[in-house]
């Protein structure tokens, strides 16, 4: 056990899985460094510095640089997985899915189904999500609801270093394509993480806090923002259950249902937008299955239905903060 960052925990999972299984290979831009010329080895460790050191340990045969073409690199990873490898591809920003949609949504996600279960695509795509760095509307989205729309994909949104390591190991060993969404503002988050290899099953939410008055469901970085709100509310005598689903596909509805059964009140906090998002999805499922348990309307706390702004002041007001969560919780307590 030692204190590790979210970034280091992800790197450790990659290293352990590469040691464990020679079929695990990394595919992405600048992972090995010096691609296409006489550049420096391992110059970056990938654009997010997550894979730093791995090319030195496993060599260029297993840490593969690609040209700056997501259509090519993700396509190659899907093909490698279909052909029997267990690739981990890096998609620098989830926003770039626009140029490799067919490879992911029509090929990887459909392969097992199309071939009647006789074939599989054991692919993991690591990608980054989230606003807060003034990177503009094309580099700041949280597109995991898009991935969860497609049956055939599994979708992971880890909020902590401990979860990131265990869930990535599960993702790599999974025989279906998994989209692993790393929030860029969490890379420096540090906590105690075991040094040994471990896995966390998909579809098991983490109960972050137990309160009993209101159920708060939050995802990815919003778990930390919601935790701040929950602490402040506790001072005022409102005790919340805080639930982090950890994976949006599969979704642990049982844990959410159990909590709502007791509280009758649900607030969902999502950094993805308000239309067709994860918050809307969970709200619909709970409304359908748990209507009789509800004592107040379900409230969603999301950004507005608008692109992510680049200006710092606008971006700050765009992303949900603790005060909006507190206001939503208070509003359901009044009913």
């Amino acid at each position: 056990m030692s204190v590790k960052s979210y970034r280091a925990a992800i790197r450790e999972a990659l290293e352990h899985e590469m040691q464990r299984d020679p079929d695990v290979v990394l595919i992405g831009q600048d992972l090995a460094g010096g691609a296409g010329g006489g550049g420096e080895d391992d110059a970056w460790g990938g654009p997010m510095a997550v894979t730093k050191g791995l090319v030195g340990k496993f060599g260029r045969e297993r840490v593969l640089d690609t040209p700056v073409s997501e259509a090519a690199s993700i396509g190659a990873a899907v093909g490698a997985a279909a052909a029997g490898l267990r690739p981990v591809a890096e998609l620098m920003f989830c926003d770039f899915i626009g140029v490799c949609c067919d490879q992911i949504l029509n090929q990887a996600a459909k392969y097992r189904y199309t071939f009647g279960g006789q074939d599989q695509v054991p692919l993991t795509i690591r990608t980054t999500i989230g606003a807060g760095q003034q990177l503009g509307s094309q580099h700041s989205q949280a597109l995991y609801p898009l991935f969860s729309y497609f049956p055939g994909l599994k979708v992971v949104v880890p909020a902590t270093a401990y979860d990131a390591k265990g869930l990535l190991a599960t993702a790599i060993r999974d025989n279906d394509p998994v989209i692993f969404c790393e929030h860029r503002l969490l890379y420096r988050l540090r906590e105690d993480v075991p040094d040994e290899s471990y896995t966390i099953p998909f579809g098991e939410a983490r109960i972050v806090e137990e309160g009993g008055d209101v159920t708060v469901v939050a995802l990815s970085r919003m778990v930390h923002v919601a935790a701040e709100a929950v602490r402040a509310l506790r001072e005022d005598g409102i005790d919340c259950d805080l639930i982090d689903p950890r994976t949006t596909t599969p979704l642990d509805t049982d844990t959410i249902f159990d909590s709502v059964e007791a509280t009758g009140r649900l607030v969902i906090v999502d950094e993805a937008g308000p239309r067709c998002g994860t918050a809307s999805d969970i709200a619909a499922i709970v409304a359908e299955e748990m209507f009789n348990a509800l004592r107040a309307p379900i409230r969603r706390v999301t950004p507005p239905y608008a692109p992510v702004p680049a200006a710092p002041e606008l971006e700050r007001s765009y992303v949900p903060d603790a005060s909006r969560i507190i206001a939503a919780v208070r509003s359901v307590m009044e009913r």
Partner: protein
Amino acid sequence: MNEGITPLLMPRWGVDMTEGKVVRWLVVEGAVVHANTELVEVESEKAVAPVEAGAESVLRRRIAPEGVMVPVGGLLGVLAPNGVADADIEAFVQAFAAPKQSVAAMPTQDETVTALGQSLRLLSFGAGDPPLLLAHGFGGDRRGWSLVQSELARQRRVISVDLPGHGDSSKTIASASPEFFRDILLALMDALGLARVHLVGHSWGGVLAMAVAEQAPQRVASLTLIGTAGQETPVEANYIRDFLDAARRAEVKTVLQRLFADPAMVSREMVEQVLRFKRIEAADDALRKIAVMSHEASRRPDPAAAPSVPTQIIAGREDRICPLGENFTPPQGVVLHLLDRVGHMPHLEAPAKVASLINAHVSAASAP
């Protein structure tokens, strides 16, 4: 002039405990109390439990009012026989300052020692040898003693260890046999330069402690077995299998609830801690090997056999994991303490009681 005056202090029930709340007094001033009379109920973050008198005396003063927070080592009340003058007690109270070396400041040491090639994590607490050495049960770790360790450390050094395959010790175990774990405990004593220890073992840790006492009785000053299985008291057959197979939070919670008389004692944190441990692949592998070896061990020491060292057995009347059979009678010289409304985890379910039983046993064994 202070002869016979004993301060009643805020106990420390966990490594993290720095203060406690006085919930209510259970005894009036002037009452004659016995060693195990419960005087005052104290609430920490982790438990609400009574503080016992510890010796026969009279409760002369209730210092800390109900509802207030008192730091660990702070004065709750004063015990003294009726012969002691009120003025002396008043002087004692006036002179009482939070102890220079308060229990809160008692040295604790988290260290790693290598024994038989395995890295072992220990927590040492307090001072005074021969120390108490605490061996946890199957699937447990050193943190399981947190509610008793500091009370025990008032009298002597207390060492709790993560056995191989557990806690923060090596997860890859060289062997899974009881003999190996017995030798680990002996090698640990060698590594720490300890000629003798007072051994305390819970459940499987008790089996190991008995094996140490049988192998090297001269090195065991006393033995306390808590919820320990023997030939007369087999482990409930399905528990180990269910514990190993429980993969998800709800399953782990249900399994852990079988350990306690009151299932509400299984907290979310406890479930999370066990899940995190079990999910480490090397730990799961070690547990499965230990389970097989312990099951196959054809002969194991039995608490019903006459002991070679001073021995006491502490068991919960509602222990469903290692229930003492109807006909269980301890052998000559062994004291059996059966605790009401307690299951397989007396050191968590009745920590104050267990700490005082261990302290009393150790004191008796240490008497010339």
